[in-house]
Protein backbone atom coordinates (compact mmCIF):
# COMPACT_ATOMS: atom_id res chain seq x y z
CA UNK A 1 0.00 0.00 0.00
CA UNK A 2 1.07 3.54 -0.64
CA UNK A 3 2.49 5.30 2.39
CA UNK A 4 1.41 8.87 3.09
CA UNK A 5 3.98 11.56 3.64
CA UNK A 6 4.69 12.36 7.27
CA UNK A 7 5.48 15.98 7.86
CA UNK A 8 5.79 18.89 10.24
CA UNK A 9 2.96 21.45 10.34
CA UNK A 10 5.09 24.02 8.48
CA UNK A 11 6.20 21.67 5.70
CA UNK A 12 2.66 20.32 5.32
CA UNK A 13 1.21 23.73 4.43
CA UNK A 14 4.28 25.18 2.64
CA UNK A 15 2.72 24.88 -0.81
CA UNK A 16 -0.67 26.43 -0.09
CA UNK A 17 -1.03 29.12 -2.75
CA UNK A 18 -2.61 32.55 -2.58
CA UNK A 19 -6.28 32.36 -3.54
CA UNK A 20 -6.68 28.71 -2.52
CA UNK A 21 -9.91 27.24 -1.19
CA UNK A 22 -9.06 25.68 2.16
CA UNK A 23 -11.48 23.28 3.87
CA UNK A 24 -10.98 23.53 7.63
CA UNK A 25 -12.38 20.80 9.86
CA UNK A 26 -13.94 21.42 13.24
CA UNK A 27 -17.16 22.43 14.95
CA UNK A 28 -16.12 25.19 17.31
CA UNK A 29 -12.96 23.91 19.00
CA UNK A 30 -13.78 20.20 18.53
CA UNK A 31 -11.77 18.88 15.61
CA UNK A 32 -10.27 22.23 14.69
CA UNK A 33 -6.70 21.64 13.42
CA UNK A 34 -5.08 24.37 15.53
CA UNK A 35 -1.45 23.38 14.81
CA UNK A 36 -2.02 23.35 11.02
CA UNK A 37 -3.82 26.72 11.16
CA UNK A 38 -0.95 28.21 13.18
CA UNK A 39 1.43 26.95 10.48
CA UNK A 40 -0.73 28.48 7.75
CA UNK A 41 -0.53 31.82 9.58
CA UNK A 42 3.28 31.57 9.55
CA UNK A 43 3.26 30.50 5.88
CA UNK A 44 1.33 33.65 4.94
CA UNK A 45 -0.82 32.60 1.94
CA UNK A 46 -3.42 35.31 1.26
CA UNK A 47 -6.83 35.79 -0.38
CA UNK A 48 -7.87 32.39 0.93
CA UNK A 49 -11.43 31.11 0.76
CA UNK A 50 -12.11 29.25 4.02
CA UNK A 51 -14.83 26.62 4.16
CA UNK A 52 -15.67 25.65 7.73
CA UNK A 53 -18.70 25.39 10.00
CA UNK A 54 -17.78 28.51 11.96
CA UNK A 55 -15.66 31.59 11.33
CA UNK A 56 -13.34 31.35 14.30
CA UNK A 57 -13.74 32.09 17.98
CA UNK A 58 -11.47 33.79 20.46
CA UNK A 59 -8.09 34.69 19.00
CA UNK A 60 -6.60 31.32 18.06
CA UNK A 61 -6.92 28.87 15.15
CA UNK A 62 -9.22 30.11 12.41
CA UNK A 63 -9.65 33.45 14.20
CA UNK A 64 -5.87 34.02 14.08
CA UNK A 65 -5.82 33.31 10.33
CA UNK A 66 -8.61 35.86 9.84
CA UNK A 67 -6.89 38.40 12.09
CA UNK A 68 -3.72 38.05 9.99
CA UNK A 69 -5.67 39.32 6.97
CA UNK A 70 -5.16 36.09 5.02
CA UNK A 71 -8.83 35.32 4.36
CA UNK A 72 -10.89 37.00 1.63
CA UNK A 73 -13.99 34.87 1.82
CA UNK A 74 -15.67 32.55 4.31
CA UNK A 75 -18.23 29.87 3.45
CA UNK A 76 -19.82 28.64 6.68
CA UNK A 77 -23.10 27.93 8.47
CA UNK A 78 -22.64 29.83 11.72
CA UNK A 79 -20.18 32.75 11.83
CA UNK A 80 -21.81 34.62 14.72
CA UNK A 81 -20.85 33.49 18.22
CA UNK A 82 -20.31 35.16 21.55
CA UNK A 83 -16.55 35.20 20.96
CA UNK A 84 -16.34 35.62 17.17
CA UNK A 85 -15.10 39.21 17.52
CA UNK A 86 -12.34 38.82 14.91
CA UNK A 87 -14.74 37.78 12.15
CA UNK A 88 -17.38 40.32 13.27
CA UNK A 89 -14.91 43.20 12.99
CA UNK A 90 -13.59 42.16 9.56
CA UNK A 91 -17.08 41.52 8.21
CA UNK A 92 -18.41 44.88 9.37
CA UNK A 93 -15.34 46.59 7.88
CA UNK A 94 -16.10 44.93 4.53
CA UNK A 95 -12.79 43.08 4.57
CA UNK A 96 -14.18 39.56 4.33
CA UNK A 97 -16.99 38.17 2.17
CA UNK A 98 -19.47 35.74 3.71
CA UNK A 99 -21.56 32.98 2.17
CA UNK A 100 -23.91 31.48 4.76
CA UNK A 101 -24.97 27.90 3.98
CA UNK A 102 -27.32 25.74 6.07
CA UNK A 103 -25.18 23.32 8.03
CA UNK A 104 -26.50 20.14 6.42
CA UNK A 105 -26.27 21.65 2.95
CA UNK A 106 -22.66 22.62 3.68
CA UNK A 107 -21.87 19.04 4.68
CA UNK A 108 -23.70 17.60 1.67
CA UNK A 109 -22.05 20.01 -0.81
CA UNK A 110 -18.68 18.82 0.52
CA UNK A 111 -19.81 15.20 0.35
CA UNK A 112 -20.99 15.74 -3.23
CA UNK A 113 -17.58 17.15 -4.20
CA UNK A 114 -15.82 14.08 -2.85
CA UNK A 115 -18.34 11.72 -4.40
CA UNK A 116 -18.31 13.14 -7.93
CA UNK A 117 -21.87 14.47 -7.84
CA UNK A 118 -22.49 17.40 -10.19
CA UNK A 119 -25.27 18.98 -8.12
CA UNK A 120 -28.24 17.89 -6.04
CA UNK A 121 -31.75 19.04 -5.15
CA UNK A 122 -32.22 19.67 -1.45
CA UNK A 123 -35.38 20.74 0.44
CA UNK A 124 -33.45 22.73 3.05
CA UNK A 125 -33.89 26.47 2.72
CA UNK A 126 -36.59 26.33 0.03
CA UNK A 127 -38.63 29.54 0.12
CA UNK A 128 -36.08 31.37 2.31
CA UNK A 129 -33.53 34.12 1.72
CA UNK A 130 -30.82 31.48 1.32
CA UNK A 131 -32.54 30.04 -1.78
CA UNK A 132 -32.59 33.38 -3.59
CA UNK A 133 -31.18 33.18 -7.11
CA UNK A 134 -30.96 29.39 -6.98
CA UNK A 135 -32.77 27.03 -9.34
CA UNK A 136 -35.64 25.26 -7.67
CA UNK A 137 -37.88 22.37 -8.54
CA UNK A 138 -40.91 20.66 -7.05
CA UNK A 139 -40.21 16.98 -6.41
CA UNK A 140 -42.97 14.80 -4.94
CA UNK A 141 -44.94 17.93 -4.15
CA UNK A 142 -42.13 19.51 -2.18
CA UNK A 143 -39.90 22.47 -3.11
CA UNK A 144 -36.21 21.69 -3.55
CA UNK A 145 -33.22 23.94 -4.22
CA UNK A 146 -30.35 23.06 -6.57
CA UNK A 147 -27.06 22.99 -4.69
CA UNK A 148 -23.56 22.60 -6.12
CA UNK A 149 -20.51 20.84 -4.68
CA UNK A 150 -17.74 22.64 -2.83
CA UNK A 151 -14.30 21.45 -3.88
CA UNK A 152 -11.19 22.33 -1.90
CA UNK A 153 -7.64 22.85 -3.06
CA UNK A 154 -6.52 21.63 0.33
CA UNK A 155 -8.25 20.24 3.43
CA UNK A 156 -6.79 20.78 6.90
CA UNK A 157 -8.35 18.37 9.38
CA UNK A 158 -7.67 16.69 12.70
CA UNK A 159 -7.93 13.02 13.65
CA UNK A 160 -7.10 11.07 16.79
CA UNK A 161 -4.93 8.43 15.13
CA UNK A 162 -3.51 7.53 11.74
CA UNK A 163 -1.46 4.69 10.38
CA UNK A 164 1.30 5.08 7.81
CA UNK A 165 -1.05 4.46 4.88
CA UNK A 166 -3.32 7.28 6.03
CA UNK A 167 -6.24 5.40 7.57
CA UNK A 168 -7.89 7.60 10.20
CA UNK A 169 -9.95 7.28 13.33
CA UNK A 170 -11.43 10.23 15.17
CA UNK A 171 -12.48 10.99 18.70
CA UNK A 172 -16.11 11.67 19.72
CA UNK A 173 -17.71 14.81 18.23
CA UNK A 174 -14.33 15.99 16.91
CA UNK A 175 -15.07 13.89 13.80
CA UNK A 176 -17.71 16.33 12.45
CA UNK A 177 -16.76 17.60 8.97
CA UNK A 178 -13.35 15.87 8.65
CA UNK A 179 -14.38 12.75 6.68
CA UNK A 180 -16.29 14.69 4.00
CA UNK A 181 -13.58 17.35 3.76
CA UNK A 182 -10.87 14.69 3.37
CA UNK A 183 -12.64 13.45 0.24
CA UNK A 184 -13.54 16.89 -1.14
CA UNK A 185 -10.03 18.35 -1.45
CA UNK A 186 -7.27 17.74 -4.00
CA UNK A 187 -4.80 17.50 -1.12
CA UNK A 188 -5.68 16.46 2.43
CA UNK A 189 -3.45 17.18 5.41
CA UNK A 190 -4.34 15.61 8.75
CA UNK A 191 -2.91 16.49 12.14
CA UNK A 192 -3.02 13.48 14.43
CA UNK A 193 -2.44 12.73 18.08
CA UNK A 194 -0.57 9.54 17.23
CA UNK A 195 0.76 7.76 14.17
CA UNK A 196 0.95 3.96 14.21
CA UNK A 197 2.43 1.32 11.92
CA UNK A 198 0.43 -0.03 9.00
CA UNK A 199 -2.04 -2.56 10.41
CA UNK A 200 -2.24 -0.87 13.79
CA UNK A 201 -5.84 0.23 13.16
CA UNK A 202 -8.47 -2.50 12.93
CA UNK A 203 -9.75 -2.35 9.32
CA UNK A 204 -13.33 -2.55 10.66
CA UNK A 205 -12.74 0.57 12.74
CA UNK A 206 -11.24 2.79 10.02
CA UNK A 207 -13.47 5.84 9.52
CA UNK A 208 -11.56 7.60 6.74
CA UNK A 209 -9.64 5.23 4.44
CA UNK A 210 -6.15 6.31 3.47
CA UNK A 211 -7.08 6.88 -0.18
CA UNK A 212 -8.34 10.33 0.87
CA UNK A 213 -5.24 11.31 2.83
CA UNK A 214 -2.02 12.81 1.44
CA UNK A 215 -0.07 14.00 4.44
CA UNK A 216 -0.10 13.17 8.15
CA UNK A 217 1.29 15.53 10.77
CA UNK A 218 1.84 14.04 14.23
CA UNK A 219 1.36 16.75 16.83
CA UNK A 220 1.32 14.68 20.02
CA UNK A 221 -1.43 14.48 22.58
CA UNK A 222 -4.07 16.94 21.47
CA UNK A 223 -7.12 15.73 23.36
CA UNK A 224 -8.58 16.86 26.64
CA UNK A 225 -7.63 20.49 26.14
CA UNK A 226 -9.34 22.34 28.95
CA UNK A 227 -12.05 24.61 27.65
CA UNK A 228 -13.53 27.65 29.24
Amino acid at each position, binding site marked *: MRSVSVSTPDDAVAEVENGSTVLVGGFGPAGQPFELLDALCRQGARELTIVSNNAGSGDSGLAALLAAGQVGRVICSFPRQADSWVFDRLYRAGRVELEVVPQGTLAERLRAAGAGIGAFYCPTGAGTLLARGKESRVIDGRDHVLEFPIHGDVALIKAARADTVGNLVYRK*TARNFAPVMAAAARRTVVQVGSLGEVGSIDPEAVVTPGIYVDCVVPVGDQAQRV*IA
Partner: protein
Amino acid sequence: MTADFGERPERGPLNRQELARLVASDISPGSYVNLGIGRPTAVAEYLDVEDGITIHTENGMLGMGRIADEHERDEDLINAGKVPVTEHPGASYFHHADSFAMIRGGHLDLCVLGAYQVSRCGDLANWHKGEPDAIPAVGGAMDLAVGAREVFVMMSLFTASGESKIVPRCTCPLTGRRCVTRVYTDFAVFHIGPGGVAVRETYGITLGALESRLDVDLTPVPLMKPAAG
Protein backbone atom coordinates in the same frame (compact mmCIF):
# COMPACT_ATOMS: atom_id res chain seq x y z
CA MET B 1 -65.23 25.69 24.88
CA THR B 2 -64.99 21.97 25.58
CA ALA B 3 -65.21 20.77 29.13
CA ASP B 4 -61.69 19.41 29.23
CA PHE B 5 -59.98 22.40 27.66
CA GLY B 6 -57.06 23.32 29.92
CA GLU B 7 -57.71 26.92 30.87
CA ARG B 8 -55.77 27.92 34.00
CA PRO B 9 -56.13 31.68 34.48
CA GLU B 10 -55.78 31.31 38.26
CA ARG B 11 -52.10 30.45 38.15
CA GLY B 12 -49.23 32.49 36.71
CA PRO B 13 -47.62 31.94 33.33
CA LEU B 14 -45.13 29.06 33.09
CA ASN B 15 -41.54 29.78 33.97
CA ARG B 16 -38.68 28.31 31.89
CA GLN B 17 -38.39 25.16 33.99
CA GLU B 18 -42.13 24.48 33.98
CA LEU B 19 -42.21 24.97 30.22
CA ALA B 20 -39.28 22.58 29.73
CA ARG B 21 -41.00 19.99 31.94
CA LEU B 22 -44.24 20.33 29.97
CA VAL B 23 -42.48 19.80 26.63
CA ALA B 24 -40.58 16.81 28.06
CA SER B 25 -43.84 15.22 29.22
CA ASP B 26 -45.20 15.42 25.64
CA ILE B 27 -42.28 13.54 24.06
CA SER B 28 -43.24 9.96 23.30
CA PRO B 29 -41.18 7.13 24.81
CA GLY B 30 -38.67 5.70 22.35
CA SER B 31 -38.37 8.92 20.32
CA TYR B 32 -35.24 10.20 18.61
CA VAL B 33 -35.14 13.91 19.39
CA ASN B 34 -32.99 16.95 18.57
CA LEU B 35 -33.12 19.80 21.08
CA GLY B 36 -32.15 23.22 19.73
CA ILE B 37 -29.87 25.77 21.34
CA GLY B 38 -31.35 27.98 24.09
CA ARG B 39 -34.65 27.17 25.81
CA PRO B 40 -35.03 23.70 24.22
CA THR B 41 -31.74 22.50 25.73
CA ALA B 42 -33.39 22.53 29.18
CA VAL B 43 -35.94 19.91 28.06
CA ALA B 44 -33.25 17.22 28.42
CA GLU B 45 -33.22 17.74 32.19
CA TYR B 46 -36.81 16.49 32.41
CA LEU B 47 -36.59 13.47 30.10
CA ASP B 48 -36.83 10.14 31.88
CA VAL B 49 -34.01 7.79 30.94
CA GLU B 50 -36.44 4.90 31.42
CA ASP B 51 -38.49 6.20 28.49
CA GLY B 52 -35.73 5.31 26.04
CA ILE B 53 -35.64 8.75 24.45
CA THR B 54 -32.45 9.25 22.44
CA ILE B 55 -31.04 12.73 21.96
CA HIS B 56 -29.42 13.60 18.64
CA THR B 57 -26.96 16.45 18.38
CA GLU B 58 -26.30 17.62 14.85
CA ASN B 59 -22.56 17.81 15.35
CA GLY B 60 -22.48 14.05 15.06
CA MET B 61 -23.86 12.08 17.98
CA LEU B 62 -26.84 9.97 19.06
CA GLY B 63 -27.22 9.21 22.75
CA MET B 64 -26.04 12.53 24.08
CA GLY B 65 -26.01 12.71 27.87
CA ARG B 66 -26.27 15.57 30.32
CA ILE B 67 -24.03 18.64 30.51
CA ALA B 68 -20.54 17.61 31.67
CA ASP B 69 -19.39 18.26 35.24
CA GLU B 70 -16.22 20.25 35.77
CA HIS B 71 -14.03 17.11 35.91
CA GLU B 72 -15.73 15.49 32.89
CA ARG B 73 -15.14 18.30 30.42
CA ASP B 74 -13.62 17.12 27.16
CA GLU B 75 -13.18 19.43 24.18
CA ASP B 76 -13.89 16.55 21.80
CA LEU B 77 -17.37 15.94 23.29
CA ILE B 78 -19.65 18.97 22.91
CA ASN B 79 -23.25 19.68 21.94
CA ALA B 80 -24.50 21.90 19.11
CA GLY B 81 -24.18 24.91 21.41
CA LYS B 82 -20.50 23.93 21.91
CA VAL B 83 -21.11 23.12 25.57
CA PRO B 84 -19.25 20.04 26.94
CA VAL B 85 -21.61 17.09 27.41
CA THR B 86 -21.45 13.39 28.30
CA GLU B 87 -22.40 10.20 26.47
CA HIS B 88 -25.06 7.62 27.31
CA PRO B 89 -24.39 3.89 27.02
CA GLY B 90 -25.29 2.98 23.43
CA ALA B 91 -24.17 6.34 22.05
CA SER B 92 -22.77 6.57 18.54
CA TYR B 93 -20.70 9.11 16.62
CA PHE B 94 -20.90 9.93 12.90
CA HIS B 95 -19.80 12.65 10.52
CA HIS B 96 -21.74 15.74 9.58
CA ALA B 97 -23.07 14.52 6.22
CA ASP B 98 -24.51 11.43 7.96
CA SER B 99 -25.87 13.53 10.79
CA PHE B 100 -27.84 15.75 8.41
CA ALA B 101 -28.87 12.83 6.20
CA MET B 102 -30.46 11.51 9.40
CA ILE B 103 -32.26 14.83 9.82
CA ARG B 104 -33.39 15.44 6.23
CA GLY B 105 -34.13 11.78 5.65
CA GLY B 106 -37.00 11.89 8.14
CA HIS B 107 -35.39 9.66 10.74
CA LEU B 108 -35.76 12.07 13.67
CA ASP B 109 -39.16 11.89 15.33
CA LEU B 110 -39.01 15.40 16.69
CA CYS B 111 -36.98 18.55 17.02
CA VAL B 112 -37.63 21.31 19.53
CA LEU B 113 -36.51 24.79 18.44
CA GLY B 114 -36.64 28.34 19.70
CA ALA B 115 -38.28 31.00 17.51
CA TYR B 116 -38.69 34.71 16.89
CA GLN B 117 -42.04 34.16 15.16
CA VAL B 118 -44.39 31.37 14.11
CA SER B 119 -47.16 32.04 11.60
CA ARG B 120 -50.69 30.68 11.79
CA CYS B 121 -49.85 28.15 9.06
CA GLY B 122 -46.73 26.91 10.86
CA ASP B 123 -44.06 28.96 9.09
CA LEU B 124 -41.00 29.30 11.31
CA ALA B 125 -38.69 32.31 11.68
CA ASN B 126 -35.80 31.68 14.06
CA TRP B 127 -32.46 32.46 12.40
CA HIS B 128 -32.41 36.15 11.56
CA LYS B 129 -34.37 39.13 12.83
CA GLY B 130 -34.00 40.82 9.46
CA GLU B 131 -31.98 43.75 10.78
CA PRO B 132 -29.84 45.09 7.93
CA ASP B 133 -26.60 45.16 9.94
CA ALA B 134 -27.01 41.69 11.49
CA ILE B 135 -24.44 39.03 10.67
CA PRO B 136 -26.50 36.15 9.27
CA ALA B 137 -25.93 32.74 10.89
CA VAL B 138 -28.24 29.80 10.26
CA GLY B 139 -26.50 26.69 11.62
CA GLY B 140 -28.70 23.60 11.33
CA ALA B 141 -32.07 25.29 11.87
CA MET B 142 -33.26 25.10 8.25
CA ASP B 143 -32.29 21.44 7.95
CA LEU B 144 -34.13 20.56 11.17
CA ALA B 145 -37.20 22.55 10.13
CA VAL B 146 -37.63 20.61 6.88
CA GLY B 147 -36.36 17.25 8.09
CA ALA B 148 -37.72 16.32 11.49
CA ARG B 149 -41.11 14.57 11.40
CA GLU B 150 -42.47 17.03 13.94
CA VAL B 151 -41.24 20.48 14.89
CA PHE B 152 -42.13 21.87 18.32
CA VAL B 153 -41.33 25.48 19.13
CA MET B 154 -40.59 26.79 22.64
CA MET B 155 -40.67 30.54 23.13
CA SER B 156 -42.14 33.35 25.19
CA LEU B 157 -45.51 34.25 23.64
CA PHE B 158 -44.92 37.99 23.68
CA THR B 159 -41.96 40.21 22.78
CA ALA B 160 -40.53 42.62 25.36
CA SER B 161 -42.87 45.26 23.91
CA GLY B 162 -45.89 42.98 24.27
CA GLU B 163 -46.43 41.90 20.67
CA SER B 164 -47.46 38.32 19.98
CA LYS B 165 -44.87 36.10 18.33
CA ILE B 166 -47.65 34.00 16.83
CA VAL B 167 -48.49 36.05 13.79
CA PRO B 168 -50.69 35.96 10.68
CA ARG B 169 -47.54 36.09 8.56
CA CYS B 170 -43.87 36.14 9.63
CA THR B 171 -42.14 39.48 9.16
CA CYS B 172 -38.73 38.03 10.07
CA PRO B 173 -36.95 36.00 7.35
CA LEU B 174 -38.22 32.41 7.24
CA THR B 175 -36.36 29.34 8.40
CA GLY B 176 -38.91 26.93 6.95
CA ARG B 177 -42.46 26.94 5.64
CA ARG B 178 -45.42 25.10 7.20
CA CYS B 179 -43.18 23.02 9.44
CA VAL B 180 -44.21 23.85 13.03
CA THR B 181 -46.79 21.51 14.58
CA ARG B 182 -46.88 22.78 18.17
CA VAL B 183 -45.88 25.95 20.00
CA TYR B 184 -45.15 25.84 23.74
CA THR B 185 -45.18 29.27 25.37
CA ASP B 186 -45.36 30.71 28.87
CA PHE B 187 -49.06 31.62 28.44
CA ALA B 188 -50.42 28.81 26.28
CA VAL B 189 -49.79 25.66 24.27
CA PHE B 190 -50.87 25.76 20.63
CA HIS B 191 -51.32 23.02 18.05
CA ILE B 192 -50.96 24.10 14.41
CA GLY B 193 -52.53 22.11 11.61
CA PRO B 194 -54.49 22.48 8.38
CA GLY B 195 -57.35 24.00 10.38
CA GLY B 196 -55.17 26.79 11.78
CA VAL B 197 -54.13 27.48 15.35
CA ALA B 198 -55.77 25.62 18.21
CA VAL B 199 -55.20 26.31 21.91
CA ARG B 200 -54.69 23.30 24.15
CA GLU B 201 -53.96 24.94 27.50
CA THR B 202 -53.57 28.41 28.92
CA TYR B 203 -51.57 29.56 31.93
CA GLY B 204 -52.22 32.80 33.77
CA ILE B 205 -54.65 34.05 31.14
CA THR B 206 -58.17 33.26 29.98
CA LEU B 207 -58.89 32.12 26.45
CA GLY B 208 -60.81 35.33 25.89
CA ALA B 209 -57.93 37.52 27.01
CA LEU B 210 -55.54 35.46 24.90
CA GLU B 211 -57.70 35.91 21.81
CA SER B 212 -57.75 39.65 22.33
CA ARG B 213 -53.95 39.83 22.33
CA LEU B 214 -53.36 37.66 19.25
CA ASP B 215 -53.98 38.65 15.67
CA VAL B 216 -54.89 35.10 14.62
CA ASP B 217 -58.10 33.16 15.09
CA LEU B 218 -57.93 30.53 17.82
CA THR B 219 -59.95 27.41 18.45
CA PRO B 220 -59.77 25.47 21.70
CA VAL B 221 -58.87 21.78 21.43
CA PRO B 222 -59.67 19.09 23.96
CA LEU B 223 -56.81 18.47 26.34
CA MET B 224 -54.80 15.68 24.76
CA LYS B 225 -51.81 14.24 26.50
CA PRO B 226 -49.82 11.19 25.46
CA ALA B 227 -50.39 8.15 27.64
CA ALA B 228 -47.06 8.60 29.39
CA GLY B 229 -47.86 12.22 30.26
